[in-house]
């Protein structure tokens, strides 16, 4: 009486960690062999990762001070941890997708454990989960706005948009230039004309530029990128040049999303946002990860971000809600 694999829409797949690459001070890219999820995943969807119980016996608190748990015993993690599918592709030249990449920023015990795993480790990965982004109409220009590891949910979308020939801009911001969620290197082309106050020598993402994505980076504390908020970059762009059909896609801290949604509303541009919330099951049974939305009749209701999200229309989100 086991569930037949063919009827499953959500796979619970043993996945081998193929490689781990540090891309910035606190961000890693992890590649997993996960063929069924890789083949099914769409941009904006996520997976729920079950970490192996064999741990390291300690937890590093956000203060950076490690403490030993009782007798240094391995420390299990009860729940899975959700991560966006950052890339899905065929490894070693395989034409069909068999590998997924996750972009993981160190924030707590779970992410640290994940980023300490050695290649060759097998995990169970549940997915693909969530609704994913809707693609814009042909000819539309896509503006992708990410705060920190929010870029994880937009990376796959950027590739898909370029494959379909959309003009695509990536606005990516972080606290510091060192904690941008991407690998950066010296920019060779001239800086974008919509930003006047750039440092003399800038960094960029060669990877994104090679895809034909226009890259605009920001760091609140400055550095060799625009010094300020990523939403300010977006605002400057929208003020200086405004393509006829613009679609916005955003993922990041709540305050950033509020601002991006405002700019979208002001410019009457469609805007999809990928929201985050502490999550339990990932499949819609526990009702932990809800967000407040306005229903068709104007009343306030909830959407479960794991099944009816994580992508919502900015216009339906109640931006006044308190988010912890």
């Amino acid at each position, binding site marked *: *009486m*086991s*569930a037949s*694999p063919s*009827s*499953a*829409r*959500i*796979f*619970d*797949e043993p996945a081998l960690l193929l490689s781990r690459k540090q891309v910035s001070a606190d961000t890693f890219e992890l590649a997993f062999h996960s063929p069924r999820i890789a083949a099914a995943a769409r941009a904006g969807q996520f997976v729920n990762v*079950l970490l192996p119980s064999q741990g390291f016996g300690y937890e590093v608190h*956000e*203060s950076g001070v490690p403490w030993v*748990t*009782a007798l240094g015993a391995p*420390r*299990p*993690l*009860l*729940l*899975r941890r959700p991560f966006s599918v950052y890339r899905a592709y065929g490894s070693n030249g395989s034409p069909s997708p068999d590998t997924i990449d996750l972009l993981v920023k160190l924030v707590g*015990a779970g992410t640290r454990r994940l980023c300490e795993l050695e290649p060759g480790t097998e995990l*169970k990965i*549940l997915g693909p989960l969530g609704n994913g982004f809707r693609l814009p109409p042909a000819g539309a220009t896509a503006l992708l706005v990410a705060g920190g590891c929010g870029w994880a949910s937009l990376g796959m979308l950027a590739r898909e948009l370029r494959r379909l020939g959309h003009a695509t801009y990536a606005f990516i911001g972080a606290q510091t230039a060192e904690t941008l969620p991407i690998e950066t290197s010296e920019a060779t082309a001239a800086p974008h004309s919509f930003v006047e106050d750039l440092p003399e020598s800038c960094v960029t993402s060669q990877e994104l530029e090679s895809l034909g994505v226009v890259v605009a980076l920001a760091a609140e504390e400055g550095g060799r990128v625009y010094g300020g908020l990523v939403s300010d970059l977006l605002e400057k762009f929208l003020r200086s040049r405004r393509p006829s059909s613009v679609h916005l896609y955003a993922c990041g801290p709540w305050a950033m999303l509020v601002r991006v949604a405002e700019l979208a509303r002001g410019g009457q541009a469609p805007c999809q946002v990928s929201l985050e*919330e*502490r*999550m*339990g*099951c990932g*499949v*819609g*049974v*526990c*009702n*932990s*990860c*809800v*967000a407040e939305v306005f229903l068709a009749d104007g009343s*306030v*209701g*909830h959407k479960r971000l794991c*099944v009816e999200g994580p992508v919502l229309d900015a216009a339906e989100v109640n931006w006044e809600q*308190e*988010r*912890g």
Partner: protein
Amino acid sequence: MGVPMGEKQAEGGSVDLSADFAGLKLRNPLVAASGTCGWGQELEGVEGFSNGLLGAIVLKSTTLEPRLGNPTPRIVETAGGAGLINSIGLENPGVEVVVRDYLPKLMDAPTVVIANVAGSTVEEYARVAERLCGSAAVSAIEVNISCPNVKRGGLLFGIDPEAAADVVAAVRGVTDKPVIAKLTPNVTDVAAIARACMEAGADALSLANTFRALAIDVRTRRPLIASNYGGLSGPAIKPLALMKVHETYQVARRAGVPILGGGGIVSGSDALEFVLAGATAFFVGTLLLREAAACSRLLGELGALLAEQGVSRIRDLVGALQLHAEAGEEGGA
């Protein structure tokens, strides 16, 4: 309402795992706890899980009117990764939507479907229970008098024997289907509540719901749950829940009332502990949030464990715990 047996004795291998629970014929004693299997549909798409693997599923708590529940964050992992605190606040679309949209889809469910009712007043419990039990898809009703996360009703009914009895009697009065009282462990004398529920007409008891709990962010000095307090579940509560089941069994046994026991079960061995303590059936909850596919593993472990001991029917082990003679029932602490 019966479910045909077979399929390797319902995944227990050579061991007969079937259970008779308050007249419900369960293919095995494994039950999905309320609030962890949604409305019986959500987990069906997950690889390795099927309602047909389980003895029964208990649907999410249903109230008369829709409820939006509590603010987020509603959940936090705690107790060194062994515990989970939640405070959902009984979010549900209200009984009319449940009856119209969800129950019809469970008409041909390959498992026993148990509805779950909650409310702020005795009358609300009765009205909702009557609507739920009016559906042929529902085989029994679990009465949630133990939710720690709502301001009115819920736990308040579950910590007072008279109030608990009033709710159970009201639900008893509107249906002939088995009535299961879901008890809270947040009481000193769970047996007193159990006794009151049985006298009011409960056909079965289920416990333990979550333990009231708190987790604090030491930097912000604020609770990690938006509504401050929540209910603790997961392996951290297993010994505590087991004790409550053991205490309840002392009174339920005499009345011949079966127990649906659980709290932190993650393995076949954990499940067998609850059976030995007196549970005729057992539930998993937090385990489903972690890995729905673990149900078949758990049943396999349970079957193997019993086969190893030469036990052919799990029902023979219900309450088979043998206390050490000298410590006696008053032992410990």
